[in-house]
């Protein structure tokens, strides 16, 4: 009875770690989604369902084909469709005749969440189960750090591909490190790996672009056609503050001495969108403003086709762009988004902010 989960960017490594910590040895690790995955998912999905649903579904079908039985699923009440993913997957998979069982992890109910998790462990106690989850959220921080390093170093690396090689090793290291003491050391080790091994162009003065938008669209390279790397290839540092930490990093949320950045972002977004309405609307708007204030050069906003909250973001973004004089590019993504079109639009956008920086620079002189 193997356990599995869908592929969600580098968060996949966190889920893999949690499953290992749960004492499970029968983990089916999902592959990176390919075009085939996208097709597989959309074939059986409701017609205008949002793209993340379709791609995750493809990923689920693939792991089922590889022998998975228990699938990590979520079930909770939200503003948008996210809380329904699991029930619909269940209905469709039943109709397709698969043999499976979903974990119903309910974020609205922490006790139930841990109970459900415990049931799936290899006989761990509640404390150990909680510990497994905790290791997950802590490792998630280091995965975020590794990605941040990757998309900074990669923009200015001298030899193409070095950063990618380093990050692959970093990811594996994070997954395989055991014991809280060792894990905590990763905070220093990961950046050090990049520092030591990637040779960078010290003279470069790269542009910096922050990527915001719907969570899946931002973190899964196969839906956004690896936009972070594409930016790097244009010599631009890319970064996304939108990661899974808001979801699973219970530790930093509970820490009274640290204010998570998403709270600051939400505060900044209040004059535009005062109340939460699902998705990452407030965060996307808030982070755009925050990073402008930090001196970043541009913002890219990604959202899946028919995504309800992000259409709202997309409609408000022009105002943000005007008022804060920050170039923002909104891109809608679906399973048919083409490589070539995306590239042209990115290049045009980078050209624009490059020119803008030059003009501003001349003015200062």
């Amino acid at each position, binding site marked *: 009875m193997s356990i599995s989960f869908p592929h969600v960017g580098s968060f996949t490594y966190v889920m893999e770690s949690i499953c290992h910590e749960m004492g499970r040895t029968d983990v089916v690790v999902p592959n990176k989604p390919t075009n085939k995955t996208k097709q597989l998912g959309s074939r059986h999905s409701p017609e205008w369902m949002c793209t993340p649903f379709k791609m995750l579904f493809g990923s689920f079908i693939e792991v089922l084909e590889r022998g998975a039985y228990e699938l990590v699923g979520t079930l909770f*009440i939200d503003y948008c469709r996210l809380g*329904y993913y*699991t029930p619909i997957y269940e209905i469709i998979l039943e*109709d397709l005749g698969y043999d499976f069982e979903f974990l119903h992890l309910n974020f609205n109910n922490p006790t139930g969440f841990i109970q459900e998790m415990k049931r799936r462990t290899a006989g761990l106690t509640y404390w150990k189960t909680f510990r497994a989850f905790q290791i997950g959220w802590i490792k998630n921080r280091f995965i975020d750090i590794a990605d941040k390093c990757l998309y900074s170093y990669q923009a200015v690396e001298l030899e193409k591909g070095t950063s990618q090689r380093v990050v692959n090793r970093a990811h594996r290291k994070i997954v395989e490190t055991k014991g809280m003491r060792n894990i905590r050391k990763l905070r220093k080790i990961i950046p050090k790996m990049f520092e030591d091994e990637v040779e960078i162009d010290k003279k470069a003065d790269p542009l910096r672009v922050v990527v915001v938008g719907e969570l899946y669209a931002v973190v899964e390279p196969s839906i956004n056609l690896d936009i972070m790397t594409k930016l790097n290839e244009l010599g631009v540092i890319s970064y996304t503050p939108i990661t899974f930490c808001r979801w699973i990093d219970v530790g930093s949320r509970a820490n009274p001495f640290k204010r998570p950045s998403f709270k600051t972002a939400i505060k900044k977004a209040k004059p*535009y969108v005062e109340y*939460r*309405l699902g998705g990452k*609307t407030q965060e996307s708007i808030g982070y755009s403003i925050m990073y402008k204030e930090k001196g970043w050069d541009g913002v890219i906003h990604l959202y899946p086709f028919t995504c309800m909250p992000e*259409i709202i973001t997309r409609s408000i973004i022009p105002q943000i762009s005007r008022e804060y004089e920050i170039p923002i590019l909104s891109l809608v993504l679906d399973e048919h988004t083409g490589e070539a079109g995306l590239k042209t639009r990115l290049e045009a956008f980078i050209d624009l902010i490059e020119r803008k920086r030059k003009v501003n620079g001349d003015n200062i002189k």
Partner: protein
Amino acid sequence: MNRVGLPRALIHYKFSEMWVTFFQELGAEVIISPKTTKKIKQEAVNIAPNEDCYSTKLYYGHVMAIKDQVDYLFIPRYGASDKKYVGCPKFIGLAEVLRSMFPDLPPIIMPHYNTAKGRDGKLSFYFKAMKIASMFTKNPFKKIRAFRLALKKHNQHKKDLVIDEKTLYKWEQSKLFLNDSPKSNPGERQLKIALVGHSYVLNDPYASLDIRTILKEQGVDIITSEQMPRELIEKQMDKQNFQLYFYYEREILGTIMHFLESKTVDGIIHIMVFSCGPDSIAGEMAARFSKRNPAVPLLQLVFDELTAETGLKTRIEAFIDMLRRGIDEQIIFQTTKVHV
């Protein structure tokens, strides 16, 4: 300076009685946008965000239709009025999106109300209403009176609209009509159809391409999902092992499941809105449940701004023909989802 504009779209169809009474009692002049017309639609499609659902797009058209005649626009940010279940995120975002996209609109009164996740209760509802009331009058008695009358009107409207189980039973027995009585065509059996969809589609003759009249002309007696007794809907939804947390979508799926089970109608017509998030879910579930239990034929129609009346008419006529022809052939046609 006290003309208040209400766009006739989206949740206006659920709450208009309350809002109109409230503002009128406060001494404001209430201006409701006219019923949807071709002009309103065209304007809407031109200015609204491209990817928005058709219903939300229409809202933009209605705002534009009255913006020059009013001093305020009333666009609540409505999250939920149920303890657990929410509305559509678009209801919450609409006011702010409009303000952002069209800075020269008149001031928008946009109270936020959300009992499910916003911890609003009766008291905060009252205070929010009073705050708005203060914009129009200083007289506290007038304010309270407006508030109470508005609530009363709303409850009355709900009572008039939603039937109880007894009435439903009578309707199922063909003892009464719940809507305009259908044309009786000699020699043809009168059909019973459940018309299921969002209230702002079913009650907007333009947006629904007057499907009610088409059905009436065809001699079909209808019941709408809005009219269904809430207990029956909740009973159906409780049978599921998931919580459909979009309040209005429960109404839709619950109605469909009730009739799939009770088999007291000849057919079900489900109107969906293209690119509507909640509909993509309820629609899929309805289709799959009806395939599993193909007792009553289900026709799912997908509407968007390109929908043409002629296409719709043909589809409906074909569906009704099929229902009249009898059971055997129906099996092939269980769920038909078409873009009309």
